[in-house]
């Protein structure tokens, strides 16, 4: 299987703080990869350098054989990386389906002047995007909420909507930032099934950050543990579970 995403000694510094320090890992096509670590370990920052929110200070990020370090966010999305956010960032006053249509917009071909004149080509394209969005909403089980305001959704629904919106960009790599946060055990179970289904249906590679160990361990095939910006362990769930360094990072150093 080909390499999808590869980080080589990726580093980012904010002033004197090294948020991510020489982190390297590799995702194969179709992987379900987990990124864990205590608070402030640099997980979300990792996402931010992959998706172009920040430019890495040094190191390389390679996506499908292309160096993408420092490319602007919107270009990254065009290359096929989509993400969700830890602190849900939906377009709050837009409806659920509109949120998803925005995600599909990057595949939109017709121009601004066409939109201003409301030409048939534009209408057709908008209709097509809405139909696609509706399909995605069915997958995340939000189809009956399509015309609700996204801010009115429950927490778990908002997280699922973020996934649908990300899928609308038709990504090859999906980054999920704490997708299960704030969900009850049943919702988590459903999410677990849903992520796998999405991965198989759209042939995605998934990289996810999560705090819930049970969720990560049951979902991910490989896991990387970060602490204070540095990699302390990586491997299959079972190996991570018993790694003394990981236990120390979570429970504190034995005196």
């Amino acid at each position, binding site marked *: 299987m080909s390499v999808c995403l590869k980080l080589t000694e990726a580093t980012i510094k*904010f002033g004197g703080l090294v948020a991510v320090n020489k982190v390297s890992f590799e995702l194969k096509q179709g992987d379900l990869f987990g990124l864990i670590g205590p608070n402030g370990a640099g997980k*979300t920052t990792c996402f*931010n350098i992959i998706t172009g*929110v920040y430019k890495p200070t040094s190191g390389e990020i390679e996506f499908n054989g292309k160096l993408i370090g420092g490319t602007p966010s919107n270009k990254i999305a065009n290359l096929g990386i989509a993400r969700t*956010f830890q602190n849900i960032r939906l377009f709050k006053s837009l409806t659920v389906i509109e949120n998803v249509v925005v995600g599909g917009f990057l595949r939109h071909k017709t121009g601004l002047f066409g939109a201003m004149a409301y030409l048939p080509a534009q209408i057709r394209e908008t209709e097509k995007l809405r139909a696609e969005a509706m399909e995605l909403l069915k997958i995340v089980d939000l189809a009956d909420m399509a015309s609700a305001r996204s801010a009115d959704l429950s927490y778990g629904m908002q997280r699922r909507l973020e996934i649908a919106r990300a899928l609308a960009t038709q990504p090859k790599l999906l980054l999920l930032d704490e997708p299960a946060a704030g969900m009850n055990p049943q919702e988590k179970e459903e999410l677990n099934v849903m992520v796998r289904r999405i991965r198989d249906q759209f042939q995605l590679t998934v990289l996810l950050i999560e705090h819930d160990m049970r969720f990560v361990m049951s979902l991910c095939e490989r896991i990387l543990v970060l602490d204070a910006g540095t990699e302390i362990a990586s491997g299959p769930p079972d190996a991570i579970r018993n790694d003394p360094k990981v236990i120390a990072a979570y429970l504190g150093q034995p005196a």
Partner: protein
Amino acid sequence: MAGLELSTLPQQLVNGILLGSIYALIALGYTMVYGVLKLINFAHGEVFMIGAYAALFASWGLGYTPNNAMSGSNPINLLIMLLASMTLCGLLGVLIERFAYRPMRNQPRIASLITAIGVSLLLQYGGQLFLPSSPAPNIDAKVNPYQDNITIPLRPVDGTLVAAAKQLEAKQIETKTAFDGYLERTKESPFQLSAAGQPFKKAAQDAERDLRTAEGKAEASGLSIRLPKGQMIMLVTTVVLMALLNFLVMHTKPGRAMRAASHDFDAASLMGINVNSTITFTFLIGSALAGAGAMMNATFLSGTKIDTFFGMLPGVKAFVAAVLGGIGNIPGAVLGGILMGLAETLVVWAGYDSYRDAIAFIVLIIVLLFKPGGLLGSNKVEKV
């Protein structure tokens, strides 16, 4: 247009600092409110305007009415005017906060900004309905007992040039008398002279011009700085007020609460700080300082006309000063105020009088684009 006349530069710098101290006083109000509420108090310039009116009415109350002005003055009058202005402005600030800003606190920031613009327009145009503004009055100069200047000579006047000017003076008097005598004789007006009178007129004019040129040269050869005593008092008062403010903010309980609220509003309220009274306090102090600035501006910068738009430009400039220094940062506001005062006088000195009001906006745009945190502020990054 004088061009870049270096000899007048020191005087201009002094004027700039004096003007800047007023801007600094107003800027403190902007910066304190922004620090705590993250709100640009658009109506602050109008509080300043009301302060100038308060000082005007106080001076009228003391007997310096435009028609029947008392002569002579004493420092107590100035103090009464200052207190009147500070009290009224402080109260106005608190009222504005209570009735216009507090109900908006849970709304998006833009909504409070719009309310602030509304309050500002209301005070400007509503004030027009009952405050005297056409013609714009000014505070009687006689209220200020400190009219004279302290002169600091930097370079003595060139003696030979003075002597030369003195000599020309005799000639000027002589030609002038001759011309006056001629007018007396023929009963002609100086504007409708017959041909016979023209040489007299020309001689008088030439002598006058020569004299003024020579005097100008003599004056320019020396270098001195004039410090109007009134404005010095203004500067000293400003420094005293700032020292008081510093004490208040750094060493008293409300000051500590204010700093805590400006650091983290929500955390401060969770720690049991009464944010409402802290905000009231902030508005009280900030507005009172603007009132002090307004009173001194209207009293010591002689001939300042007061109308309901009086606060608009100083308000904008002081806001820019606060941004320049780093909004939310108290020493920054003082630094920014002085820099704005200097920038303005330097623009005038360089001969671009008509751009003196534009310079504020130009500085603002440059600062916000290149160092949005201001000189002493910090740049915050949005967390993703």
